[in-house]
């Protein structure tokens, strides 16, 4: 395998009182979508800011595209594109002017600028709006324009920090379509943070950060598999009777009761469920089968849901 595009070693950031990032290590391979998850205050933003050369690490090393983030800031900056959480477009200027400025900041060769601007605008479907001022754009259009701008200098890694925050669900799913299209077309490595764990499912690998530490790092599937199988939730007309029946006749299921719902954790619900329903004599009033989500993974690693974390 080729050397990783991002390599972080013993990265630490200390503030006066607290240690925001505690000697973390990870690598990101070229071409993958790397999800970086964690509750607010986990140290995600601090880590990203250090990787993007915006914040000086207390100790540890970061290498991006072969350049040292401490010593070769300019080269690192030229190798990455960043879509920030908040809007960083100049709203008084047109879309085209925003993109042109970016080309000039990043020294895109003069004769290639128009061509590239057209190319990125096409990816995000904003070609017809290029001469309009950004202040007339909707939230989703602004986001798309920012993504387009982040691509102009052909970065090796694209950082997307909460790219869909504050957008309505429809716009969010559209945006992900664009991002996936981008990955297929350009093969850019993407480093992504998001609060919406369902969105992180598109990642090739995810790292979960909590209280300054990386507590898990693997593909979403592998992480979910670690939880051991599928979740079945059911209610019956008589739960006590049902529990007795389950105890007598059913093998290979982890049983727990929460309120009036019985939870069964099984290796594979597909094989289990058909025989299970026939076995049970008590009528089932409600049945829900679900695969574990990243939320369950997060819950099991941190002991709380992502939304529960203190701000």
């Amino acid at each position, binding site marked *: 395998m080729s050397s990783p595009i991002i390599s972080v070693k013993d990265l630490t950031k200390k503030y006066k009182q607290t240690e925001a990032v505690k000697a973390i290590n990870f690598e990101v391979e070229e071409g993958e979508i790397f999800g970086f998850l964690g509750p607010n205050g986990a140290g995600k933003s601090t880590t990203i800011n250090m990787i993007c050369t915006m914040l000086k690490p207390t100790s540890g090393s970061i290498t991006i595209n072969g350049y040292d983030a401490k010593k070769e800031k300019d080269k690192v900056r030229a190798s990455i594109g*960043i879509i920030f959480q908040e809007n*960083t477009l100049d709203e*008084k*200027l047109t879309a085209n002017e925003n993109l042109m*400025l*970016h080309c000039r*900041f990043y020294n895109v060769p003069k004769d290639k600028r128009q061509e590239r601007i057209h190319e990125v605008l096409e990816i995000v479907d904003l070609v017809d709006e290029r001469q309009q001022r950004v202040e007339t754009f909707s939230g989703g259009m602004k986001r798309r324009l920012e993504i387009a701008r982040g691509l102009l200098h052909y970065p090796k890694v694209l950082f997307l920090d909460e790219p869909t925050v504050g957008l309505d669900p429809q716009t969010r799913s559209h945006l992900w379509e664009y991002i996936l299209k981008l990955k297929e077309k350009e093969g850019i490595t993407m480093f992504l943070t998001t609060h919406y764990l369902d969105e992180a499912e598109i990642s090739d690998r995810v790292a979960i950060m909590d209280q300054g530490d990386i507590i898990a790092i693997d593909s979403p599937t592998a992480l979910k598999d670690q939880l051991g199988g599928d979740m079945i939730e059911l209610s019956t007309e008589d739960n006590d009777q049902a529990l007795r029946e389950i105890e007598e006749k059913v093998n290979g299921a982890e049983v727990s009761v929460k309120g009036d719902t019985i939870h069964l954790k099984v290796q594979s619900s597909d094989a289990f469920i058909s025989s299970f329903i026939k076995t049970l004599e008590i009528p089932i009033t409600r049945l829900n089968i679900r695969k574990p989500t990243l939320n369950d993974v997060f819950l099991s690693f941190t002991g709380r849901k992502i939304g529960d974390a203190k701000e």
Partner: protein
Amino acid sequence: MEGIFAIWQRDLTKFFRDRARLIGSFSMPILFLLIFGGGMSGSMESMMAGNMPEGAEGFNYVEFVFPGIVAMTLLMTSIFSAMSVIEDKDFGYMKEILVSPISRVSIAIGKMLGAATIATIQGVILFLLIPFLGLSYNLMALIQVIPFMFLLGCALSGLGLLFASLISSTQGFQLTVQILVMPMIFLSGALFPVSNMPAWMDIIVKINPVTYGVDVMKKIMIDVENMPVAVLDAMGLNLSVFGQEVTMFAEVIFIAGFAALLVLFATFSFQRANA
């Protein structure tokens, strides 16, 4: 270079798009010209005449005050244009600049040149008022003074950048700048001669960079060579520091050095900035 030019051009484009700012920024100097030029010229001239020896009747207050008001416009516009740095931080655009590979020096220079250009344009537009004020300056002098106005604009916008790096809110910036700008104008010789000041005020006059800017502008624009010494005295155009008369060359060098020093400060502040 490209980065400097891009930052410069962006600030200029935004200036020309903001009509309200364009018009609003002329109201103050025009007001001053009306009050000082029209209203006060009579009393100022008779006051001055009392100090002058016989036969020195060449004192024209409007001629004296006009370069001062142009310098004042430069000062205000340069410093307030530097506020764009704070606005860029507030609106997030500074992040886009800071994460790009542009060198921090280029950001500082680009911002400085942008503010200085806007200030110079505003100053030059004031020249259009010359005929209406009943003044006549030598055309060559007017052309010669423009490069110096630009240099002065650079120094003053550097000062603005310094404030902008220390103050994080636009309100705070406006307040601080207003408190600082007023004494800088009044104690610079822009509006009245500062030749007979109390000692402590004289010190402020001499460390105020605007003093030298105003002095150079007046020396270029007003025909000093053919003026009686007494009138020069009355106009305060024989500035001296530690008993040495200051030459125009020294003043220009001083202002250029001042601008260079402030660019260094600004660069340093951009280096530290974590947007």
